[in-house]
C-alpha cells in the first residue's frame, strides 16, 4: 500500500475546556477527493485548521506524505488552503492577475512569464472572472473575490489542497457550474483535495470519500454510495439525503427483515445495526422510494392516505401526505410531474422493506436522543 497523503491519528482538540474534536482517525489517499460534511458546529472547520497547522491539537498526530507534521509550521506543511474568510487574504494594491501570480513569483524557480499569463488566463476563464484580471480586488463582489482566492491557490498546484466551503457564498447557478469545474480541476491536477461543506448534496456529488461528522466525532467514512445507502447510524441516514423519520422498537426479527412497532403501526424494515427484539431506535424512510397509486399496490408496507399538497419542481414532484399515526407530513418524491386533480381523497402509498431502515444505533456520540434525530 502506498503512503496516504494525509493521515490523522487519535486527534483531539479542545477550546476553553470544551472538547471540540475527539478521537479523530482517518487517511486520505494521494489524489483522492475527500469531503468532510456535518452540521454547523460539528468541528469540521477545526479539523481542517488542525491539518493546516492553524490549530494546535491537545492529543494525536497529523501525518503529511508519511511525515509526522504535528509540530510543523503551516509553511512547512506546504499545503494549499482556500479559506472561507478570504477578504483579508487578497492584496488590495495588486490587480486580480497580480494576486494570482504572486504565489508563483515567490517560488525560487525561474518563471516563464508567457506560460504564467497563459495559465492565469485559463484559470480565470474557468472560474468565470477573466474580465476582472486588471481590476483591483476591492472592485469585485464577494463571490468574485472568493474565486480569485481559489485561483491563487490552484495555480500553486500544491499536492494537497484544503478547501473550506469555497462555494458557500455563490448564487445557485454559479455554484452548480463551479462544482463541475472543481471536479475537473481536481482530476486534471491529480492533487489531493480535502473539502468541507455543510451541503450534503455537494458532498455526494464531489467526493470520492465522504467523512460525516457530528458533535466533534466521526460518524462514518465511506464512498458517497455507502453513506447514502448504508448509513452506519441514524444520524448519517437522517443527515445525508432526505427522509421521513419516526421512533420505533423492534417487534420481530426474520432473517434480514425486521418488524418495527411504530405510531404508523407495524412496519417491515431493514435492520441496519443488528438490533434485537425490544430494542428501540429510529426508522428512516426515503421519500424517493415511497410509491403512489397503482405502483404501491405490491409493496410490503401500504397505507391509504390523503394528500395535503404537492409541489412540482421540474425534474420531480414532492407530495405531502397525511398518514394516520405519523406526526407531521409524510413526504413522497416521484420523478417528472405528478398532478392531483383533487386533494383530501384517499390514495394508496407504499414502500418495501429496503426503503425503510431501522437504526438502534443513533450516533457515535452518546449524547444524541431519538428526538435529536427526528428534529434534524
Amino acid at each position: 500500500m502506498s503512503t496516504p497523503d494525509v493521515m490523522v491519528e487519535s486527534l483531539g482538540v479542545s477550546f476553553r475546556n470544551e472538547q471540540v474534536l475527539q478521537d479523530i482517525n482517518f487517511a486520505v489517499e494521494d489524489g483522492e477527493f475527500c469531503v468532510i460534511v456535518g452540521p454547523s458546529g460539528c468541528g469540521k472547520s477545526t479539523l481542517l485548521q488542525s491539518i493546516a497547522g492553524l490549530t494546535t491539537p491537545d492529543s494525536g498526530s497529523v501525518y503529511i506524505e508519511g511525515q509526522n507534521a504535528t509540530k510543523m509550521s503551516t509553511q512547512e506543511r506546504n499545503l494549499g488552503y482556500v479559506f472561507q474568510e478570504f477578504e483579508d487574504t487578497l492584496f488590495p494594491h495588486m490587480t486580480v492577475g497580480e494576486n494570482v501570480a504572486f504565489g508563483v513569483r515567490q517560488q525560487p524557480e525561474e518563471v516563464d512569464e508567457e506560460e504564467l499569463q497563459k495559465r492565469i488566463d485559463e484559470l480565470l476563464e474557468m472560474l468565470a472572472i477573466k474580465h476582472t484580471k486588471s481590476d483591483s480586488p476591492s472592485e469585485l463582489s464577494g463571490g468574485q473575490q472568493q474565486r480569485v482566492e481559489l485561483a491563487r491557490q490552484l495555480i500553486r498546484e500544491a499536492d494537497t489542497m484544503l478547501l473550506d466551503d469555497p462555494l458557500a457564498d455563490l448564487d445557485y447557478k454559479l455554484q452548480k457550474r463551479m462544482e463541475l469545474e472543481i471536479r475537473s480541476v481536481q482530476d486534471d491536477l491529480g492533487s489531493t483535495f480535502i473539502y468541507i461543506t455543510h451541503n450534503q448534496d455537494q458532498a455526494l456529488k464531489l467526493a470520492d470519500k465522504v467523512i460525516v461528522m457530528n458533535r466533534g466525532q466521526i460518524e462514518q467514512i465511506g464512498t458517497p454510495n455507502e453513506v447514502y445507502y448504508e448509513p452506519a447510524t441514524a444520524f448519517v441516514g437522517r443527515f445525508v439525503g432526505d427522509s421521513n423519520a419516526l421512533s420505533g422498537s423492534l417487534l420481530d426479527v426474520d432473517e434480514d427483515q425486521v418488524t418495527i412497532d411504530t405510531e404508523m403501526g407495524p412496519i417491515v424494515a431493514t435492520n441496519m445495526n443488528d438490533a434485537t427484539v425490544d430494542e428501540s431506535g429510529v426508522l428512516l424512510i426515503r421519500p424517493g422510494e415511497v410509491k403512489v397509486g397503482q405502483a404501491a399496490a405490491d409493496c410490503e408496507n401500504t397505507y391509504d392516505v390523503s394528500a395535503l399538497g404537492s409541489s412540482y419542481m421540474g425534474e420531480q414532484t414532492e407530495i405531502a401526505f397525511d398518514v394516520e399515526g405519523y406526526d407531521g407530513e409524510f413526504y413522497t418524491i416521484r420523478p417528472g410531474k405528478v398532478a392531483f386533480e383533487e386533494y383530501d381523497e384517499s390514495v394508496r402509498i407504499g414502500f418495501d422493506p429496503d426503503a425503510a431502515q431501522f437504526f438502534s444505533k443513533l450516533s457515535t456520540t452518546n449524547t444524541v436522543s431519538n428526538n435529536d434525530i427526528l428534529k434534524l
Partner: protein
Amino acid sequence: MTISQDHEYTDDQNITTNRDSILEVNNLTKIYPDGTIAVEDITFEIAAGDFCVLIGPSGCGKSTTLHSLVGRFPVTEGEILLDGEDITDVETYKRDIGLVFQDFQLFPHLSVVENIEYGLSQINIKEEERESRIDEMIEVMGLEGMRGRLPEELSAGQKQRVALARSLVLEPKLLLLDEPLGDMDYKLQKRMERELMRIHRNMDTTFVYVTHDQTQAMRLGDQLVVMNDGKIEHSGTTDEVYNYPATAFVSTFVGDSNLFSGELVSISEDGTCANVDTPLGSFTCGTKNLDSPPKNLIGESIPFSVRPQYIEIGGHHENVLSCRVKDVIHQAGSGTQVIVDADRPGLPPMELQAKSHKQLTIDTDTVNITWKPENATLLERASVLPDIDLEKDILGE
C-alpha cells in the same frame, strides 16, 4: 383520486386559472433619486391564496418590487391594487400587508407570546379576539410550551415560526417574505421550506416570497414572476415557466437547460413543430409555448432549449446528436448527470448535459443523445430586454 404521471403535457395545463386576484400591479416603475431605473413598467397579478415567488439575479428589481408593495417609498409610476383597492399612495401601516425579513427581527427582550401579541396591541380588537388569535397561531406554528421563551432561547426554526406568527396574527391580505431562508445551513433550509409550505396550506393568506435561488422558487411557488434587469421575463405557474418558458433567459435561469441557436427553416402545416438548422445539425422543435407558430421568423436566427432530463443517452427519438462523453456524475439518491461535448464546424465544441433519475452505466467514449421534438422548446427571443446577446449574455460564450 386521479393521478397522472407523465412527461407529456396536455393543452388544458396552459389555461390560466380564473380565480380572483388579490394583488394587481399595473405598469409599475421605480426610478431612484440617483436616476437608477430599478423597475420599469411591470405588470403582474397574484391569485388569492397562492404562493407567489419573485425570482431573478441580484439587481433584477425583485426587492424594489417587494418594497413598493410594502410602501417603503413612493413609486415613480403605476398603481398597486390590493383586493381591488388602490393602495399606491396608502401609508405602510394601513396596507394590510405583513412582512418577514431575512433575520426575522424579533424583539429580543419580548417573549414568544409578547412578540406575537405586539402588532395586535397596536390595533383595536377585543381582548377575547386577541387571545383566540394568539392561541390559534401558537397551535398552527407548533409553539406550545414556548410561550414564555425569549428569542435567544429559540432555534432558527422556532424563530422563523414566531416571525411568521407575528405577521399572520394580524390576518394580512398578503404576507411578503424577503429571502427569509438566505443564510441557513442546507439541511435546515430544506426543512424550513417544507414548514413554510405547510403553514401556507393551513392559512388562507397569499404569500409573496423573494429569492434568487431557483430550486427554492420551484419548490415553494405556485406562481413564479421571473425578473431580469427591472423587467418581467415571464409570470406564470411553475409548470408554465419550466416547460413553456417565454424567453431563453427564463429557460436557463429557472431549471437547467441546453440552449441551441440556429435558423428557423420551416414550420409544419399544423403548426405544432418547427425545423431549425444549427451548426450541430438540423432539429425538430415543439412550438407549444408560443401563442402562435412564428411564421414571421422563418429565415431568422432563433434559440430553442432542451432540459437535461428530457435528453436520453441512446434512445430512439427523432432528434439525434453524436457526442463525446466528458464526465459522468453519479449522485447517490438522485440518479446520473452526463456532461458531453458536441463538435461544431469552425466553432469550439458545445457542452451539453443529460440527466436521468436512474443510475446509468456509460462505458463508451462517444454516445448518441436523442430527444423528442415536443421536449425541445422553441423560444421566440433571448429575453424581453431588447439589447441582450444570446451567446454573450445568456450562454456566456
